[in-house]
């Protein structure tokens, strides 16, 4: 009996090992990744967007010229080429909405290309009004202007930048400052003032929103705890238009492990699905033929 159990035990161990390995290599802790279910991923937001039938956009040149869509560009990286910028501008001016979420000054090139006066300033924005015991956990409050996030009483920011230009939609309290010396404290040469973190600007028939903190969309910031209205803010964005497009061509949310990307490539393309099914059938047929030959 003992001898006959060994192959089963070995098989179970191998199975457990394979599952563990697969789990490990298919999980990720990448910042903003939609495949990252940890605190710094955006899996929660993407689940909500999937539920609302969001369309993932891999190429910006396929954007419609006119319509009533909302394009969500979250945590972009890499340069947008001139053709993409032109396409985005056409999309925006055609009556669509673009919600651009970035804390990097590099993206100002794109904003300039879109004809926007809004500029992102990547500074160490700190505030006395915070929700956690860390200077980066800044609170923002609605300004008089703007229509995004109506009814939201405050936003929880996480290491935000700030924006200049456009109409301020959310701004920090007056007890905020740029921590130039990085000592996490307010010192003499760091004046207190309000900083805009969400701004709005009209472009033709469309509207551009610039949010200077992509971190408000990570899982930990979307947790609907007491006083946390970030999830409601996300909902207000993704439900703003019936047609929701989510950029995956430049967004860091698209980054993920190879296994998941491969699975997604198969999932999202009928040709790839057919190819995989054909390969499986071929492999099984080959196995059966080989065994029969050996048997004979």
């Amino acid at each position, binding site marked *: 009996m003992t001898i006959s159990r*060994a*192959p089963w035990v*070995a*098989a179970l*161990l*191998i199975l*457990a*090992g*394979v599952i*563990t*390995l697969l789990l*490990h290599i298919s999980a990720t802790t990448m*910042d*903003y990744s939609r495949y990252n279910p940890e*605190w*710094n991923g955006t899996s929660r937001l993407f689940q909500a967007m999937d539920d609302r039938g969001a369309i993932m956009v891999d190429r910006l040149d396929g954007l419609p010229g006119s319509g009533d869509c909302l394009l969500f560009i979250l945590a972009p990286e890499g340069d947008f080429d001139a053709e993409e910028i032109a396409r985005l501008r056409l999309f925006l001016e055609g009556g669509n909405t673009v919600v651009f979420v970035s*804390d990097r000054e590099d993206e100002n090139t794109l904003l300039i290309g879109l004809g926007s006066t809004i500029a992102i300033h990547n500074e160490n924005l700190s505030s*006395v*009004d*915070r*929700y*956690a*015991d*860390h200077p*980066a*956990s800044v*609170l923002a*409050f609605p300004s008089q202007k703007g229509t995004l996030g109506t009814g939201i009483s*405050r936003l*929880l920011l*996480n*290491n935000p930048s700030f924006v200049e230009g456009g109409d301020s939609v959310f701004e920090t*309290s*007056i*007890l905020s*400052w740029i921590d130039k010396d990085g*000592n996490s*404290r*307010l*010192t*003499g040469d*760091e*004046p*207190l*003032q309000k900083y805009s973190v969400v701004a709005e600007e009209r472009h033709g028939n469309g509207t551009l929103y610039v949010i200077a903190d*992509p*971190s408000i969309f*990570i899982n*930990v*910031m979307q*947790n609907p705890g007491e*006083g946390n209205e970030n999830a409601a803010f996300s909902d207000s964005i993704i439900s703003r238009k019936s047609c929701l497009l989510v950029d995956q061509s430049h967004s860091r949310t698209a980054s993920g492990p190879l296994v998941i990307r491969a699975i997604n490539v198969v999932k999202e393309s009928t040709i790839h699905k057919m190819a995989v099914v054909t390969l499986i059938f071929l492999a099984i047929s080959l196995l059966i033929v080989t065994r029969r030959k050996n048997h004979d």
Partner: protein
Amino acid sequence: MRRLPALLASSALIITCLVLIAMQSGSPLLYSPRSDALANDHVNTAALPRVTGDRSAQVLPLIEDLLNSPGSLVLTIKANDYEGVARELEEYRQVSRNLDRLVINLDMTESELAEFRKANQENLHILTELSNGTQRWEELKTLEIRYRESGDSQMLTSITYEGESLQRKIEDLYRDYLDQEDVMIRTGEKFNADTSTYLQSERDFREVVSQVETGQEERVSAAGNGTATGGMESRLTIDIIDREVSYSEFVQVQGEIFTSHEIRPEEVDLFIDSQKAGSMHMGNNLTLSFKHVVEHERAGTHTVFAVYSGSLFSEIRTFLVKTDPTMLVMEPPAHEGGKVVMMGTLRTDKTPVKNAPVVILSDGKIVSTVSTSQEGSFRVAAKIPPGDHTVKALFEADSYPLYPSESEEFKIFIPEPATPAGEEPGILANPVHIGILAASICVSCVAAFFYLRHRRPGSIPPAPVFHLPEIRPSDEEISEENLPSGSPIEEPDRISSDAIDPGRIEPGRDLTRLFSILRLAASRKLAFLHPGSLTPRELCAKCRDLAIGNAICRFTRGYEQAVYGGSGVTEENREMLLDSYNAAMENLEGIDH
């Protein structure tokens, strides 16, 4: 053969999994969100303690209150409602204390809000002084009427002089109040507070000053420039040598007195700001002189007059105290005896600042306050918690005619205090630990004793013997093998070849009996546990490295061939079995000797 690759593959997978887990849990051993709280772009707020949110909601009303309070207070002072003034001053102090606490709690001690706080503190001081000054002014007005009615010209002169002093003081207070305007209005506007009440308070303050100036002018004219009393022949004059002085300099007052009476110099008193500063000394040339060192006088104009014998008054003179800059120099902090030692000097351009308070700040928070020596030096040993800190010294110059100053900032690192080797609390420091240790040693010793005793050959309990059904042992064997420990056993130490007929040796009986005897004897001599359960091969394996191993293994091989192999006991085999048996038994005897 198939098992080996499967085993290798599963082992490799398990090891890989363990390595991956180890990599994740390397440091710290137990995962906590706090250990994973920081990423490049954000912090894990779930791992951080929550704080009260909208704190600006507490600050803004305070700022509005502090901008409004002076307006109301000045109006009440102007109305001479001193009960109301006392009440409003107390409320003003309370609101100011709230701001002080908030600024410290929010760690904004170096911010522009701290500037606002300082300006507000100055305003509180100014308005308290204004309240005292105007109250005294009203008293003087009452006294003036009384003395005028009684014709007491000496007291009228005294009142005039005190009034002069009060007027100058109130004018100075007004100037100081205007100095705060910039910070107060700028901060108020920044926080979207209404500053009109504060601006109105300045106008009301100006009116109070005007009232005092007008009243004093009237008093002086009514007194008829009464600088001298006590007879036309008596006169007391004073002059100030240097009318502009700085910190630590002397205000030198010289005077002359002409009177028909005999002069008693000790009765010539000098008043600065209506407060007696001392008596003037008579020199050889019959001139009076007085020196007053400037230390805690406020910057601004001060009044001086002299009075002889309470009846002869000099004219009023003034001098100006200038504000000097200060330099606060601190040496790099040093560690000494678990504390941080900071030393330095505080001085003006010309002189050290003595007995002045110097505040030591660590990360903006006060850790110590020390007074300077006569040479302007200070030294303080402060206890600062471990970690990185920024320290500096600060001189606030609250009651000095000096500008505040602060030293250079120093970044220091305070290491975690290392426990001295001699003081390290060892495991034996706690009596409970000693008890547990002693108990565990005793239990271990007792357990070891019983274990060793149990292992002695003589004390091995009889083990149950299992036999296959077809090789049933005889009653004798059963009785021998189940004998109680230590009981004598009759063993045939040697069996001659004649004793057993080769043709009659039966695999199931005689040979088995020989094996049982040999196994029992070997087990007793070599202290094997459970001898009855030893197979021939196990017996051989246990004895292989011993001197008897060869004989026993030879016997067990022959035994297996005869009993299990079905070859039976041949003549040659029989001899070999008996020889092996005898050799083994002889060797076993030899072990005891």
